[in-house]
């Protein structure tokens, strides 16, 4: 049955029923604050039950307090049909075949008037309707693998994606795009790097920081860039493709294990840490920055390793951390802990006994640095040496998130201490690197003349 009162509840719902007025009904309302005319709109579910939303003739929305309503009359009814214009995605001979997997992110989306939230729109037709330029880049097909918000992505989704990627490669696709919410994009990128190895074609994860229902959205350009990278680029790795600068200029391709979301709202939020990005990408093509990468191949020999142990956690160390936290984790059955330690990879003495107990119980504990840039160096101070003696294994410059995902993946395959350590210490695609290039750490600060000059001269 059709919901005539979308999103309304409590007193507001009663008011609508009392006056026999529906959502999308054209309505005249007499209130103690004067008269109002407009169309009743659905109400966001989290908003209160004391107001009714009205779209007035000039296109604006207003709310009417129900306690002020004296009289209400429906004078007409016209339901809005909100749809992304759907046009058949044209097939062009000679263009690469690209598959787009939808996961529920905001890359292509529309508004949901009940929740006020942005909901995804994915079909090739819808995508073509909103970003017609895609048809000049590739022959696109799409598949909605699942629809979850970025923060709800987890092991199950990583596994489904890995399997779906394997199938597409088997089908002979030239490149894969995964549309994904940005919040945990880098977790998924790391997971897929471990689960899908020896890729013959690019796998490009893409999102948007401004949903595509906004005119200045980064979605369209990100989509085009990802289609170029997936369809035409030579780099056959799991990559994240997002804005380089905040300007509409070029995108970066980041290696899935070295990338991290670094700003809650900036367009250029994704950065490669401890290295340079793999490449830049524009609508003209991919420009490699790194000299070494995995090249595109004609074969279909990909290895799919879809394993994951869920009882793994990251422990972000802070001064005065109490040992009971670690004991609690062990008691809860956690099998692996990634510590994001201070400085070169440290925690304070009071937690030592707890760490020791944990290792003895077979919990796998690894050390990363919360500074994000730089390596663990646990030989430098006694603290580090003590920890290693207890069985805490340093992970060099592996990012805490990349380490967390890797440990889950490793423990999904084995529980043997040495095997787990071997897996963790053997880089699959630069989650640890032997060298940190001098330009891998660039956090310039505003205010000094040379940086101000740079910011002024380049549209970053």
């Amino acid at each position, binding site marked *: 049955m059709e919901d005539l009162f979308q999103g309304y509840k409590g007193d507001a719902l009663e008011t609508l029923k009392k006056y026999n007025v529906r959502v999308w009904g054209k309505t005249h309302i007499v*209130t*103690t*604050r*004067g*008269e*109002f005319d407009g169309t009743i709109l659905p109400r966001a579910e989290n*908003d*209160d039950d*004391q*107001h009714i*939303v009205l779209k*007035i*003739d*000039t*296109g*604006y*929305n*207003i*709310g*009417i*307090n*129900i*306690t*002020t309503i004296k009289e209400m009359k429906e004078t007409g009814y016209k339901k*809005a*049909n*909100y*749809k*992304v*214009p759907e046009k058949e995605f044209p097939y062009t001979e000679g263009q690469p075949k690209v598959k787009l997997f939808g996961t529920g992110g905001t890359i292509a989306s*529309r*508004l949901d*008037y009940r929740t*006020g939230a*942005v909901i995804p729109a994915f079909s090739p037709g819808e995508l073509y309707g909103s970003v017609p330029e895609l048809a000049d880049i590739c022959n696109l097909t799409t598949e909605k693998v699942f629809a979850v918000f970025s923060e709800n992505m987890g092991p199950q989704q990583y596994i489904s994606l890995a399997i779906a990627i394997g199938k597409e490669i088997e089908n002979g696709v030239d490149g894969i795009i995964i549309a994904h919410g940005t919040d945990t994009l880098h977790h998924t990128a790391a997971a897929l790097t471990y689960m899908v190895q020896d890729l013959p074609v690019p796998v490009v994860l893409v999102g948007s*920081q*401004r*949903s*595509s*229902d*906004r*005119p*200045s*959205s980064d979605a*369209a*350009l990100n989509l085009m860039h990802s289609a170029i990278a997936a369809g035409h680029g030579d780099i056959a790795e799991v990559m994240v493709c997002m804005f380089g600068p*905040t*300007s*509409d*200029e070029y995108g970066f391709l980041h290696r899935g294990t070295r990338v991290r979301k670094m*700003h809650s*709202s*900036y*367009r250029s939020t994704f950065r490669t840490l401890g290295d340079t990005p793999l490449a830049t990408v524009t609508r003209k093509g991919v420009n490699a920055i790194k000299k070494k990468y995995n090249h595109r191949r004609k074969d279909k020999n990909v290895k799919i390793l879809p394993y994951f142990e869920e009882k793994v956690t990251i422990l972000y160390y802070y001064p005065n951390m109490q040992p009971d936290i670690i004991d609690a984790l062990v008691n809860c059955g956690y099998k692996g802990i990634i510590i994001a330690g201070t400085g070169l990879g440290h925690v304070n003495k009071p937690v030592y006994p707890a760490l020791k107990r944990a290792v003895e119980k077979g919990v796998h504990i690894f050390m990363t640095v919360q500074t994000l840039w730089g390596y663990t160096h646990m030989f430098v101070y006694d603290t580090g040496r003590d920890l290693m003696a207890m069985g805490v294994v340093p992970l060099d410059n592996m990012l805490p998130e990349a380490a967390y995902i890797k440990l889950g993946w490793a423990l999904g395959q084995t529980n043997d201490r040495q095997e787990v350590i071997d897996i963790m210490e053997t880089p699959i695609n630069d989650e640890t690197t032997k060298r940190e290039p001098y330009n891998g750490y660039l956090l310039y600060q*505003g205010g000094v003349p040379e940086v*101000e000059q740079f*910011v*002024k001269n380049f*549209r*970053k």
Partner: protein
Amino acid sequence: MSTKITPKQNYELTRQQIGYIDRRLATPEDYRRIGFKSGLEVHQQLATKEKLFCHCPCGVFQKNGDYDAEVIRHMRPAMSELGGYDGTALMEFKTRKNIIYRINNETACTYEVDDTPPFKINPEALEIALKISLLSKLNVVGEVHITRKQYLDGSIPTGFQRTAILGVNGHIQLRNKKVNLIQLSIEEDSCREIADVGHERWYKTDRLGMPLIETVTAPELVTPDELREAAEYIRFLNRSTGLVRTGMGAGREDVNVSCRGGSRVEIKGVAHNKWIPELSHNEAFRQWALLHIRKLLLERIKKEKWQVNHMELDPHEFKFTYLPLVECKEKKHKIIAINIPEFKGFLSHFTQPDQVFADEISQRLKVIACIEKPNMIHSEQEDLSISDHDFATIRTYLNAKNNDAQIIIWGPEEDMETAIETVVERCEMIFDGVPNETRKSLPNGTTIFERVLPGADRMYPDTDSCPIPLSNEYIEKLGKDLPQDISERIELLSKWGVPEDAYHFILSKNIFPVIEEICERFKFDPKRVAIFFGHTYKNIAGKQKAHTDFNYRKLIGLFKFIHEKGLHINIAKYLLPILFQHPSMEFNSMLTALKFKKRSLDELAAPIDFLTEKYRDIRKTDDKEEAANWIMGQLHKQAIGNIELRDLREIIDKRLQ
């Protein structure tokens, strides 16, 4: 053989045919004849400390070159919640502009460049806007919903303006008419444009995000003067709160005009109300002229039969000497000739003073196809710029008939498709009448094309912000703290007998409350005080720049001093220039500077007889009037501040009898 049009003659002829008259000669009857109809969107910046949705400072402005960073963006149309795309949106997308924002760290943060979602709405701004809504007799909403209003010209980096309705269905009382107000909204101000050349447009972000209100009247104003009166009224009303910004750009009007059979056309951003009558007058007649062209065209051909053709010209084939055409060769630009059937006599048809229909096409070429002027030549211009021989060849190639008109355009290859479309589209629109558009005002009272007018389809809810409930208690509290209506103030001024030419200054500078306070506290005659402000003070304020410490409180202090000292009010005029420049000086010292001495009427009258004698000695005449004037002149200075001059004069007249 073609009979050639003489453009100037045709301009004059068509100007007469449509009955264009100079505005100074126009009567209400002329406006009734063409069905003049207009309404206003009055924009007013609010005097808050911070911007509307972020914490950047308000009212700090930068020069064009004063910036710390540039960001480049492009705009794509987004769909409205009702599922449509907006017409302007698609046009702007067609133009493919690189929008470049110049950011100064002092006045813009990551919110302005759309890298941070909005913060909570500035409560100070909301409160001022609500007070003005109440003053405008609007029905205040129960809950404020932030809406996004799409603007793809780049004037706002998000591509939309965050705006919200605070009230609907209000009214204002003009002298002879009650005018309805459709709504009042609070919104963020846009960027200021620095330049627009080809495919690039620059903006600065200092003004962006400043709180603004927009008051929209119903289209009920039927003469340019009435329109101006409404604009003034709303401006005075806004200023009566004392909580709005004044100065250049703080108040701007969009003027909507149509004539009978015409369409709503919006003249954007008119900074001075005194420009409104001329602009609206010319716009109504422009529409009247377009409808005249339509009538003539429909007599010649049906829309279905009308077919434009065009062709590319090879610059090597012709002996072009006109520089823009010559340059096409080395720039590798294309030259296109277009034949417009049955358009003879229309390209040089009058539209506005010193503008013809061809200008409408040229202006659109600049805006829509991004081709800088000069961007076309045509068969009805004074100097054709190409030889008659070349032109005849082109006409032959185009298969042109005697009644056709021709246009030649040029530009980069990638822009030519849009350019041709633009020309054809504008000509074709004649069949349907007047296109909806926004127009930019020029200082001479005419306008040029700015954008296609956006519709209601460009509104959609802002998912980044929550609705803001407005409780009855809050609205009632605000209602108790309002200045009186402008119409009441005008009534009082009239009742007091203040001359009308003093109203404007008093209301526009929000001096009324000052006059009221002075009269209430010190019991002066309101007419006199009002005239002091409306004439004397206006005069000095218009000629000199006041000392920075000078303000209305100082003026109240002046009247307090006069009152307490038991002086006559007529000394205010003499103290004012001193106070204006030396606001910190003691009033007593000012009196000394004026060489003032306290004198009674008797003391002042004492020398009259002596002066009468003296006058007779000097002038050797018996004319009483002249004698009285002379004696008055002698005593005038001593009398100021002591007595009413009229009283002294009466005594002089009596003595002279």
